[in-house]
């Protein structure tokens, strides 16, 4: 056994020759050495190529590839920002944005849809099928079918499931107060940008800032993860106006009534808070509905109180007289002879109702042109110019509102005596209604002037003294007499309150000529004992056949607006409540 096992341990030998397997000549390499080297080389080159490719992908084109990958699952979402609301001083919403849908289409895809579906779509879009097809007949890949479609309708359209009809979120602005507030608030276009009024003036603050976020979405469109910090959207700031919508509506309604009664072309009203300079109401006619602006004319859009500068007429007289009082040139009792015509150079000045000798107080009370001219000629042009400039004439009002009129006042160096005399009673100089209301503040505030504001203020601004309190109080008494039994505007009276003011009737100038068209105005304040509001009204072109002077036309409107505003503001009466007024014919509307 042991010898056998020793034998098997020895290398096996080929039976015939006894050659070990490894040395078998059949196995001897017959191939030349270069072949194996070639294989080695090819393998090596392949490896280098692979390494090179890997390097290329990993290091060189990694950005491109990552971007490609990301674009298959990452999405950038736009985060909408809402435009700020506009409210009145009591928080009532005057303008608010509501999300709506814009319906757009890929024409090719829609036209391939069955006819009934297109008909249904047309019906929902409130247009005829032909109209819709006309819109779809386009080479573009993107056609707006209708914008600012309400949510309910757009849901119905989506339910139709028409290929190629898509919706996009956008906002529509609503103005609940409509026509009464149109000129103050203004409106926005479909792109949500302010076009008029405060919407335009405060566009920057009101408009929100869009945000964005980059997210990963899964197969079903769910957001799975934020890829980077969210760029937060910022909603627009809420804007609180100084307007009191109750006073505003009443002023608007009464202005409307007055215009109809005197067949006037247009009109404007402004109510100012004496204590803070806030504008409580600002109404214009003709007006428009900001929610439906399909037909708009320039006349409707015009904010006459702000943009129309006209020759104010007698409303200017108090400024001339107060300057004379302030510089001690006259006293309220000083007498002037106003009978007959007054000749300056080649021109003549006369009064509508001739009076004899009048005191300064009576000149205001009876609105005498001759008397005012005589007072004016006692002063230097520069003094008058400075006075008018200080109270804001010839200057743009110092608050942000589109299209405010500056008014025209020439430099005092070019004034001739006749011009100085006519400017003293408001001809040859132009001003807007808002400028007049602002200027009257010096009488209502004991000689101080504070800036006006259309935004609600937390505290009253600091005033600038223009005339002494004494002069202002004297002027108040004179202006109150205008509404007295001898004055030109007894109809301006308000039962229960002492009111003061001045009428104005101006001839309009067309092509450099005075024509038989008038602007009747009244500017005043109440209560006289402690003024709270200034009210200025302007009626453009009352029918010349009927009454067209400030007294009968503008004063009654002033009276009714003032009565309502004082009641709304809870101002206590400062005189006995007796009806001194002849019925002003406006009794029906409060």
């Amino acid at each position, binding site marked *: 056994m042991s010898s056998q096992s020793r034998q098997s341990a020895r290398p096996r030998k080929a039976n015939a020759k006894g050659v070990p397997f490894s040395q078998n000549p059949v196995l001897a390499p017959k191939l030349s050495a270069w072949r194996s080297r070639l294989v080695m080389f090819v393998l090596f080159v392949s490896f280098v190529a692979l390494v090179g490719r890997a390097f290329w992908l990993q290091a060189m084109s990694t950005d491109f590839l990552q971007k490609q990958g990301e674009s298959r699952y990452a999405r950038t979402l736009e985060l909408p920002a809402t435009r700020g609301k506009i409210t009145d001083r009591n928080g009532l919403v005057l303008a608010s944005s509501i999300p709506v849908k814009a319906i757009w289409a890929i024409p090719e895809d829609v036209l391939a849809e069955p006819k009934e579906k297109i008909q249904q779509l047309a019906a929902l879009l409130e247009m005829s099928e032909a109209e819709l097809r006309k819109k779809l007949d386009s080479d573009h890949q993107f056609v707006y079918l209708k914008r600012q479609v309400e949510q309910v309708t757009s849901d119905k359209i989506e339910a139709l499931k028409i290929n190629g009809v898509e919706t996009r979120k956008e906002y529509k602005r609503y103005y*609940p107060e409509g026509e009464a507030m149109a000129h103050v608030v203004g409106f926005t276009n479909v792109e949500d940008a302010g076009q008029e009024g405060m919407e335009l003036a405060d566009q920057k603050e009101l408009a929100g800032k869009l945000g964005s976020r980059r997210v990963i979405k899964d197969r079903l469109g769910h957001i799975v993860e934020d890829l980077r910090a969210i760029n937060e959207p910022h909603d627009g700031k809420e804007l609180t106006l100084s307007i009191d919508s109750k006073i505003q509506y009443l002023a608007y309604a009464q202005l409307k009534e007055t215009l109809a009664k005197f067949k006037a072309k247009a009109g404007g009203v402004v109510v100012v808070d004496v204590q803070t300079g806030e504008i409580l109401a600002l109404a214009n006619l003709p007006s428009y509905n900001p929610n439906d602006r399909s037909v708009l004319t320039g006349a409707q859009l015009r904010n006459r109180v702000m943009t129309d500068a006209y020759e104010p007429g007698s409303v200017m007289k108090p400024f001339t007289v107060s300057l004379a009082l302030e510089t001690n040139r006259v006293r309220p009792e000083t007498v002037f002879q106003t009978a007959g015509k007054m000749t300056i150079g080649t021109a003549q000045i006369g009064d509508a109702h001739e009076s004899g000798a009048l005191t300064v107080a009576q000149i205001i009370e009876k609105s005498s042109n001759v008397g005012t001219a005589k007072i004016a000629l006692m002063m230097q042009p520069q003094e008058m110019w400075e006075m008018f400039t200080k109270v804001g004439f010839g200057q743009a009002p110092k608050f942000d509102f589109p299209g405010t009129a500056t008014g025209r006042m020439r430099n005092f160096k070019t004034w001739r005596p006749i011009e100085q005399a006519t400017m003293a009673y408001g001809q040859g100089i132009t001003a807007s209604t808002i400028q007049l209301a602002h200027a009257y503040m010096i009488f209502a505030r004991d000689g101080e002037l504070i800036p006006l504001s259309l935004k609600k203020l937390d505290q009253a601004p600091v005033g600038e003294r223009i005339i002494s309190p004494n002069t202002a109080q004297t002027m108040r008494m004179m202006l109150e007499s205008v509404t007295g039994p001898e004055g030109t505007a007894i109809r301006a009276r308000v039962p229960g309150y002492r009111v003061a003011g001045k009428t104005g009737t101006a001839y309009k100038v067309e092509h450099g000529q005075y024509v038989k068209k008038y602007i009747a105005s009244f500017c005043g304040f109440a209560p006289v004992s402690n003024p709270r509001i200034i009210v200025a009204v302007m009626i453009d072109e009352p029918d010349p056949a009927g009454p067209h002077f400030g007294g009968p036309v503008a004063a009654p409107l002033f009276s009714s607006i003032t*009565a309502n505003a004082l*009641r709304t503001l809870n101002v*206590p009466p400062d005189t006995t409540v007796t009806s001194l007024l002849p019925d002003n014919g406006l009794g029906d509307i409060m």
Partner: protein
Amino acid sequence: MSGRFNVLLLIAVVVCALILVKTQYQARHLFIEVERSQTEARQLEVEWAQLQLDQSNLGKHERIQASAMKDLNMVPVTAERTQYLTIHDRQKQ
């Protein structure tokens, strides 16, 4: 000795990996939850704006005046028919 240590490490790695998977899953769930709540918040905000608008629409002075005069037969107040009460400062407080 080192063999046993490697096994321990392997187990630790596997456990960590499983925890990671679970956490990621939870995170995504919570994220979807947050997302849904935010959408709801936006929806409510829109609704609130709409209601505010409705309030303004219904509280319009024009409308109040019309229905007061027509439906309730009310007449505008005038100073003659108003009883004014004077409140002294002391009584105010």
